[in-house]
């Protein structure tokens, strides 16, 4: 903590740990009122969108997988869907099922990482997962094993866990064998039980009072908990095709950030697990609904601190869904559908672990990308994070700076911001007048 010559009080930490990537948060307090909260994002200059222009449409899944080490599948899936949309070709049902299985792996891995290594330490009063592991090694080991099951799915279907190489426009280079999937199923049965135990554990945490206001936006599918396709829905009644995303949602520059922030025509909104849970609870399988009931979470949840419970429930779902897909798996006739280039624009939207991820590509008749737009979930959530933190800080101004900083960090982690998708460098500054 420092005291400046102007009498303002500034608190800062070197970095906001346990957030994927880096960025900064600045809070200004004057006369007992929170005047401003800014999430400062120093985004690479839309490197990948520019980099993709002039590339072949077949290269896009491999290139976009490099945007994020935590959610490469999300980038690949949204990219494939957009390009296939532009080409006017749909993949076979079995390929779609394998994509959904691959995505379940990413949800398991990403959520287990966030729950056990990033967020649970906040609730239990530990500085980090390392300190948590020193006192509760068995818990952290369970988290690591759970995460590894997700990793295993990525290895089997994606060829490797980091930047999967088996994904292509139209499907996969190689479909998995029955034997490979049987081995996964064995691990997934353990993982589903471990995920249920995880949900019961995190539901016992103390959750500060906070209500997530505004619209919640997610993909919605009538027949299943939406991951890789569906229509765009919101709690205020939005119901549009993915192709219409740009008409309702956009990004805009703000003075304090070089990144673009998400904006909806109807105002600030939130994407992510809580949005999915509220919009798609009815599509969850019975086992997940039962666990939700057991831990006391109703079908409506607006407390962002309980996002850790929702993530745990989504891990139960992802394990259960992966098992369902494996049980009904029949190898596709071909691992991929032929996807000849066709000039046009295509849209793709999938549910990354952190929320809605939109891609749009314009391709010429020769298959060369002439325009690319990628809207990651963290960019969409930035205004919502700022708005939520503003209220949160206002109610906690009586706290000293270290405790206020700690609680702000915890609140930011509710959104599991994957800032590496959009930025580097995150540190938190509270400036009190």
């Amino acid at each position, binding site marked *: 903590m420092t005291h400046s010559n102007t009498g303002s009080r500034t608190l800062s930490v070197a*970095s906001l*740990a*346990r957030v*994927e990537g*880096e960025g900064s948060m600045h809070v200004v307090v004057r006369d007992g009122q929170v005047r401003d909260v800014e999430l400062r994002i120093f985004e*690479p*200059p839309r*490197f*990948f969108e520019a*980099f993709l222009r002039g590339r072949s449409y077949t290269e896009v899944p491999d290139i976009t997988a*490099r945007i994020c*080490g*935590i959610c490469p599948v999300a980038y690949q899936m949204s990219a494939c869907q957009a390009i296939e949309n532009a080409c006017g070709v749909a993949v076979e049902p079995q390929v779609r099922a394998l994509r959904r299985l691959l995505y379940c792996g990413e949800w398991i891995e990403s959520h287990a*990482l966030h729950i056990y*290594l990033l967020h649970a330490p906040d609730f239990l009063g530990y500085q*980090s*997962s*390392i300190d948590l*592991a*020193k006192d509760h*090694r068995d818990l*952290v*080991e369970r988290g*690591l094993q759970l*995460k*590894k099951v997700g*990793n295993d799915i990525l290895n089997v279907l994606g060829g*490797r*866990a*980091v*930047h999967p190489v088996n994904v292509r426009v139209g499907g996969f280079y190689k479909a998995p064998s029955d034997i490979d999937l049987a081995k996964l199923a064995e691990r997934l049965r353990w993982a589903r039980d471990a995920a249920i135990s995880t949900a019961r554990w995190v539901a016992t945490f103390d959750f500060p009072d906070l209500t997530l206001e505004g619209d919640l936006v997610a993909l919605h599918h009538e027949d299943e908990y939406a991951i890789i396709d569906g229509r765009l829905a919101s709690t205020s009644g939005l119901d549009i095709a993915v192709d219409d995303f740009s008409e309702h949602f956009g990004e805009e520059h703000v003075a304090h950030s070089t990144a673009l922030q998400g904006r909806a025509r109807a105002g600030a909104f939130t994407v992510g697990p809580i949005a999915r849970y509220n919009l798609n609870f009815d599509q969850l399988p019975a086992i997940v609904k039962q666990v939700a009931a057991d831990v006391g979470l109703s079908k409506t949840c607006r407390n962002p601190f309980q996002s850790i419970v929702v993530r745990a429930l989504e891990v139960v779902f992802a394990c259960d869904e992966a098992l369902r897909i494996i049980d009904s798996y029949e190898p596709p006739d071909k691992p991929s559908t032929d996807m000849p280039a066709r000039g046009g624009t295509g849209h793709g939207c999938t549910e990354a672990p952190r929320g809605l991820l939109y891609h749009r590509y314009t391709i010429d008749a020769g298959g060369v990308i002439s325009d690319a737009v990628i809207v990651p979930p963290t960019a969409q959530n930035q205004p919502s994070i700022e708005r939520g933190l503003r209220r949160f800080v206002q109610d906690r101004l009586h706290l000293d700076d270290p405790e206020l900083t700690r609680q702000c960090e915890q609140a930011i982690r509710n959104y599991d911001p994957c800032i590496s998708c959009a930025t580097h460098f995150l540190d938190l500054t509270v400036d009190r007048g």
Partner: protein
Amino acid sequence: MIPPKIVIGIGNRFRRDDGSALRVLDELAGRIPAATVVLESDGEPARLIDAWADAPIAVVVETVRRGQPPGSIAGIEWDDQVAPAAGSAHGSHSLGILEAIALGRAVGRMPRKLRIVGIEPEDLAWGEGLTDAVAASIDAAAELVVDYLRMDGGDPPTSI
């Protein structure tokens, strides 16, 4: 069964010199025993722990900022109790190698020997290709990896 030796390269080929470790992996083809596992990583700690747990020796190649001229190579031998002083060596992946070591130790999932080959970057901006100084150091970094792999993975690390 004794787990194989492993070489892990941490980096991103689309962030200029951050891709140096992955270029080192490319250079290792044909220079190390075929049984050696070679793995690209983004530095995420849990995956690192999974990859190196119980290996007789793990060599991690990583972009490391130590304030040295670009392309400088640092060999860090963790099991010799040579822990870097705070602030003396920062990987470009802030939630990466150092946290992975601490977490791996806390849950007892470390390699028996751990070596880090650090390459000093010049440019970590988004873009392709290494700077000249870093590109010139790739062969020497690969040779250091080869040297480390020749060491037998005997004693478990005592302190890091």
